């Protein structure tokens, strides 16, 4: 009989790694079976690089279809992640026994707009670090109303906050639809979700940002995110996590590796504490354990050869000003963040470009600009400075396809000798 494994506080582990000058790397890894999930975590721990383990859940568990997940497990079918609720706390604790250690925390990644059962199960299994958010796991991946997701996330966040061990919650707000969301809006949503977590009692949070299409723009964005976190999250433990590009990924192994290396260098240059990698298999299928470990090593090597930087970027294109304006307007529209977030989307103060969720205004549009930076095409009703350009004419499907494919084209091209 094994009880829950006690976890070292996630935030403290990340801070120690950063002080030692190490970028902590983490996979997006999840398998259906208990044994293969355990093998995967052990392989990450033995990878020889400073890493954090991940248990990514399957899409049935994400949407609360626990019966479907159970049926698949009973039949021995493959799922795209670990069905933690179906396996239950005891089996999950046994899976983790001897895996989690003082030098190896494990985070649960799930994608759920209503995560209470997931959180209860992971806490009972001894896991205290997870991620998501009422906006970032509702608008892009579900069709439940934003107010329903916010109410569920309020209860779920309190489960973590009231747990006797210190829990950690990361906002997924820096990803919104994976690509083509301009940095200022990603930053604003990530900071607002962290504020939502703190409002419900969290003492350790992280803000996220997904690599986009232009290294200098991304560096400016990470600097702006860090500045806004410092302004708004004083008194709690916080850090920044970078996601390697989340949009259409290069198909060639060389292209995929170059994009991964570029993200690792970006992380180090901007003083980012933690990074979640992508693998060479990304464009094709769910990566194997070996491909995940390879990606961690590639990211670590690229990071180790990059001189550490500060969060100051060399150019100011107004990302901090835009993000700050969005955060300020949203916080000003209601007495609590939990009430402000759905209201802000209703009023169009926040509006994710192209997002089809019924609670998103869907008037904003964005493009990859001539220099490769993400640009606003139409800012809808968002309170952004007048200097931001607004185009009236609609974008063509051809332009949108080209912009979605921009990074893939760029990185799949052979490097000139």
């Amino acid at each position, binding site marked *: 009989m094994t009880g829950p494994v006690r976890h070292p506080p996630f935030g403290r582990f990340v801070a120690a790694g950063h002080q030692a000058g190490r970028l902590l790397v983490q996979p997006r890894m999840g398998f259906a079976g208990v044994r293969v999930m355990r093998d995967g975590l052990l392989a990450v721990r033995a990878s020889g690089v400073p890493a954090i383990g991940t248990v990514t859940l399957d*899409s*049935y568990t994400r*949407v609360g279809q626990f019966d479907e997940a159970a049926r698949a497990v009973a039949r021995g079918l493959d799922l795209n992640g670990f069905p933690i609720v179906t396996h239950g706390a005891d089996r999950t604790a046994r899976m983790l026994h001897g895996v989690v250690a003082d030098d190896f925390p494990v985070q649960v990644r799930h994608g759920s707009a209503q995560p209470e059962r997931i959180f209860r199960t992971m806490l009972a299994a001894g896991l205290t670090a997870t991620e998501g958010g009422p906006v970032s796991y509702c608008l*892009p*991946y*579900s*069709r439940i109303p934003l107010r329903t997701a916010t109410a569920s996330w309020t209860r779920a966040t309190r489960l973590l906050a009231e747990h006797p061990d210190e829990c950690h919650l990361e906002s997924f707000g820096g990803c919104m*639809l994976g690509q083509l969301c301009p940095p200022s809006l990603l930053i604003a949503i990530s900071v607002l979700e962290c504020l939502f977590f703190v409002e419900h009692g969290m003492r350790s949070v992280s803000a996220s940002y997904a690599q986009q299409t232009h290294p200098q723009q991304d560096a400016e964005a990470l600097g702006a995110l860090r500045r806004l976190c410092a302004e708004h999250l004083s008194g709690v433990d916080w850090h920044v996590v970078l996601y390697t590009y989340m949009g259409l990924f290069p*198909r060639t192994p060389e292209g995929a590796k170059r994009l991964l290396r570029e993200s690792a260098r970006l992380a180090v240059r901007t003083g980012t504490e933690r990074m979640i990698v992508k693998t060479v298999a990304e*464009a*094709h299928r769910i990566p194997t354990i070996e491909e995940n470990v390879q990606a961690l090593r590639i990211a670590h090597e690229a990071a180790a050869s990059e001189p550490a930087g500060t969060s100051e970027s060399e150019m100011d294109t107004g990302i901090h000003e835009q993000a700050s304006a969005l955060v300020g307007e949203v916080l000003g529209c209601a007495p609590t963040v939990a009430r402000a977030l759905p209201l802000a989307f209703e009023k169009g103060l926040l509006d994710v470009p*192209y*997002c*089809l*969720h*019924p609670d998103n205004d869907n008037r904003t549009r964005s493009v990859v600009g001539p220099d490769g930076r993400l640009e606003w095409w139409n800012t809808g009703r968002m309170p952004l400075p007048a200097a931001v350009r607004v185009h009236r004419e*609609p*974008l*063509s*499907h051809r332009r*949108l*396809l080209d912009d*979605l494919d921009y990074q893939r084209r760029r990185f799949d091209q052979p490097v000139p000798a």
Partner: protein
Amino acid sequence: MTPGLAPELTTGTGPRRRFVLSSVPSDAHMWNLVVLQLFIEEMGHEVINLGVCVPVDLLVDRCRAEQPDCVVISTVNGHGYIDGVGVIDALRADPACADLLVVIGGALGVVGDRNTGLAGDLLDHGYDAVFPVAAGQTGEAMGRFREFVAERMRLPV
């Protein structure tokens, strides 16, 4: 202009038709739906985009109410061959939707083009056309869909 297409349907100035565009219950992918909406609008038609993870009941209700000229199911998560059957069975079982023009397309199986034999199964269940999309061939599949629409809608209604 593409040869063989009715002029009014290639210029976007012809009769405006109404499309219902939808994903299947288990698929949360959104970009395919965004691109297809623009594509159909550029053909000169109206699109009612139901978005991601559409429950079968919701799809049938909306189709019954809207009586669209065409229903387009787009899915890329690899469960299209399974979920697509449930969708078409429900539509064909409803008297108000049994005769609607319904097509499905996208990355329908988990192993790419090796699944194309399964397209026949979807046709047997009642789809009017199936557009499997192999990796990197989005444009070709969309071209075939466009030709199909032009041909079908040139017929007297």
